[in-house]
């Protein structure tokens, strides 16, 4: 079996739960139908299985390398991305006029999940390019779009995002890269960019770096950051490639996972850059890419959790070991380990995390479509706000649960899971990145609590609560779901109280004390969000025949019994506002 992501589950979530077919009523998606969605997912699935999954292990074992001049990657990476290109996947969500098919973002996200489950490193080249292209589509000038966007949509140029610097990752305020304006309207950039995924390679004709830098004399802090296009090879106005630009690879980082995509320290040495949009607006433009990339990171974490789960499930069905507890006869045959309660525990946990996070990611992706095509501007604005609130949860909570799921997948494999002969240890190492990049989960937790839930006098929080409430109301009168609805109602109330208390405290000036426990808040919010989505899945599965739907109900039961019960504890911890993590002035953590 391919063991990527269950197609059946994707269909359940897309059509039975999220009613994605309703999007075909919108003008933008008018030409689409369930058939075009299915056919697109079919193509993605095949390319993922036949071209991406096939070199996932090789990517891990044979890292990219730098010969001082060029960065070398496995030839299979290029072949896979060529198949991706030929299928037209680079442009999928874009207008017909740009070579796209106006595919809903939620379907493109589902396709992306398949590629990430198959080979997260190779898929990352494509998804970075897609994010880069979206920034240029939104903010690039017509001339820039012609030179840099179209070739990315054709899959001839690839894109990167260059934010981080060696000394500044979480705190972009402190960026040092400078961009000096030139008489011809271009800029010359100097500085170092660290951690740049896909920062150099020979796979595409050219690489379009989107670089954050400061124009001297601009306002201090993030308000002084501008966004620049810095191509690897300069591009003439007619599209021909010119000489190499001043972007030099200073070295590659040797990573724990995600090894198939080179990660570069780039040195900008009088590199020619073109300003995107207005000066000093760079960070807000880049957030277009970052928000999308954050959904992408959450989705990647989920995809690795999902494929790990399917690997563990298959292993547990075929590995025999020991006997049922009541069977005292040593001569009776050993049973498949899936029959042991503790192994079932580990499988159900993985199922609850992976399938719950798949729902979360698709829900968020559908909000992108909503924002883009909602019938009224108010509805579009609501979708945008709700997405703002959910983005740190998609990124932060999927990546926390994803790592836990992969750890359990190893455990189900016993000693074999700890070896490189099996795939699960690689998933774990690959997945470990997702809690770090695109803003660490510590930063996501702060973003959620200190920015998002309080946005517009708490409107973001209220929109989220309304959605949870809607599911509660829809489940309350169903006998089988009532206990879940009631438990969720209680958890929602608790979350609202906690949120109020923390935001009040912060408003009273005790910012550090209020936000010191933001990670616990992310856990609380993430747990309630997943409980809500699991109730939604249970609601849609209830009364339907077959093991698939029964499995959904069981996973929901697990989630409410074993995960939602953490809420009171987390809430109490948050309400206490204790100071265990405070007083950095004190040297309590010293070892002397």
């Amino acid at each position, binding site marked *: 079996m391919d063991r990527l992501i269950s*197609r059946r589950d994707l269909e359940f979530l897309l059509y039975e739960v999220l009613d994605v077919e309703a999007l075909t009523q919108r003008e933008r998606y008018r030409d689409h139908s369930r*058939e075009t969605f299915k*056919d697109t997912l079919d*193509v993605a699935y095949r390319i993922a299985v036949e071209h991406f999954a096939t070199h996932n292990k090789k990517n891990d074992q044979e890292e990219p390398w730098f010969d001082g001049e060029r960065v070398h990657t496995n030839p299979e990476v290029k072949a896979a991305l060529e198949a991706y290109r030929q299928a037209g*996947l680079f*442009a999928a969500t874009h207008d017909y006029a740009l070579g796209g098919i106006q595919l809903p973002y939620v379907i493109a996200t589902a396709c992306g999940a398949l590629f990430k489950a198959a080979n997260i490193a190779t898929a990352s080249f494509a998804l970075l390019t897609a994010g880069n292209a979206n920034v240029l589509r939104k903010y690039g000038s017509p001339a820039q779009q012609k030179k840099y966007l179209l070739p990315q949509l054709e899959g001839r140029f690839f894109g990167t995002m260059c934010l981080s610097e060696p000394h500044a990752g979480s705190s972009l305020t402190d960026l040092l890269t400078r961009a000096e304006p030139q008489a011809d309207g271009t800029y010359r950039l100097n500085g170092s960019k660290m951690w740049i995924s896909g920062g150099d390679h020979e796979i595409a004709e050219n690489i379009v770096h989107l670089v954050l830098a400061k124009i001297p004399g601009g306002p201090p802090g993030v308000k002084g950051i501008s966004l620049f296009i810095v191509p690897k090879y300069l591009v003439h106005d007619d599209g021909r490639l010119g000489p190499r630009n001043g972007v030099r690879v200073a070295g590659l980082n040797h990573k724990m996972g995600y090894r198939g995509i080179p990660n570069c320290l780039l040195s900008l040495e009088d590199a020619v850059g073109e300003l995107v949009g207005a000066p000093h607006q760079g960070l807000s433009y880049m957030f277009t890419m970052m928000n999308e990339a954050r959904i992408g990171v959450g989705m990647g974490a989920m995809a690795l959790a999902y494929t790990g789960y399917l690997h563990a499930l298959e292993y547990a069905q075929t590995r025999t070991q020991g006997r049922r507890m009541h069977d005292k006869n040593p001569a009776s045959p050993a049973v498949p380990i899936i029959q042991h309660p503790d192994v079932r525990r580990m499988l159900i946990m993985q199922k609850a995390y992976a399938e719950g996070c798949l729902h979360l990611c698709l829900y968020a992706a559908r909000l992108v479509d909503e924002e883009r095509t909602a019938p009224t501007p108010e509805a579009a604005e609501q979708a945008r706000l709700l997405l703002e609130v959910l983005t740190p949860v998609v990124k932060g909570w999927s990546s926390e649960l994803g790592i836990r799921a992969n750890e359990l997948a190893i455990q189900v494999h016993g000693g074999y899971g700890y070896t490189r*002969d099996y795939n699960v240890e690689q998933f774990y190492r690959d997945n470990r990145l997702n809690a770090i990049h695109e803003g660490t989960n510590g930063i996501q937790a702060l973003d959620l609590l200190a920015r998002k839930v309080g946005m517009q006098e708490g409107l973001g929080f209220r929109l989220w609560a309304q959605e949870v409430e809607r599911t509660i109301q829809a489940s309350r009168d169903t006998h089988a779901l009532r206990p879940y609805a009631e438990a969720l109602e209680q958890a929602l109330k608790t979350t609202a109280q906690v949120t109020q208390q923390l935001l009040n405290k912060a408003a009273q000036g005790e910012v550090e004390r209020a936000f010191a426990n933001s990670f616990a808040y992310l856990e609380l919010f993430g747990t309630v969000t997943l409980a809500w989505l699991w109730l939604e899945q249970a609601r849609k599965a209830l009364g339907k025949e077959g093991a698939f739907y029964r499995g959904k109900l069981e996973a929901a039961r697990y989630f409410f019994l074993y995960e939602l019960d953490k809420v009171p504890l987390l809430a109490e911890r948050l309400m206490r506002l204790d100071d265990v993590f405070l007083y950095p002035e004190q040297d309590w953590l010293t070892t002397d």
Partner: protein
Amino acid sequence: MKFVAVIRQVPDGESRLKIEGGKVDLGGVTMILDQMDEWAVEEVIRLQEKHGGESVVVALGPERFEEAIRTALAMGIDRAIHLVAEGYLDPITQAEALAKVIRAEAPTLVFTGGQQADWDSQALGPALAEALAWPVVSWTTQIELEGETHAKAKHDLDEGAEVVRVALPAVFTSQQGLNEPRYPTLPGIMKAKRKELKKVPVSASSKVEILEQTIQEKSRLNKMIDGKDPVAAAHELVRLLHEEAKVI
């Protein structure tokens, strides 16, 4: 010129099949365009790309075959004819029904899959040729047109291959090595929606009736490892014992 491919839809080889009431239960099984038919479709598209004219797929089977037809259209076939028939039809009955439609189309040549992935039948191509009274070249690995009247083709035999010249119209069946089929493209998927798909009801009755089906038990699935390269074969054996049988 006009090039026709005859196609079918089959369960994906990765699917787990179940028996329900003595019959294979296809509920929940992923269905795909038969791979050997996919080679036929690809070859027909290539012939059209080279020589111009028109490409057509013809399918005979239940409504759900439409998915496989869409795949062929998204790969680049111009239009489709779907002979709609629910239930099993034996290859001879199928060939007779197909021949009527294909004769009316008067194509330059017809391609079918060499062997059906689900029933393992190799009969359809030859039976169709018989019904049309056209020559047949089976297990084709190469084809080249010589004007509109003849084609030169290479085809596999048990222990070798032959190169033949055949008068057109003729029926060809596909074999591995014929080509590397393209994937449908996303723009192709959108275009496929607007292509002609003609439905023709078929009311033929099968001369063979299936009474009961069983599925080979997995434990009896013997795996043959190609021994041409002994070192590779040993590696493969170790891998299978380790990863699949999990005995070492």
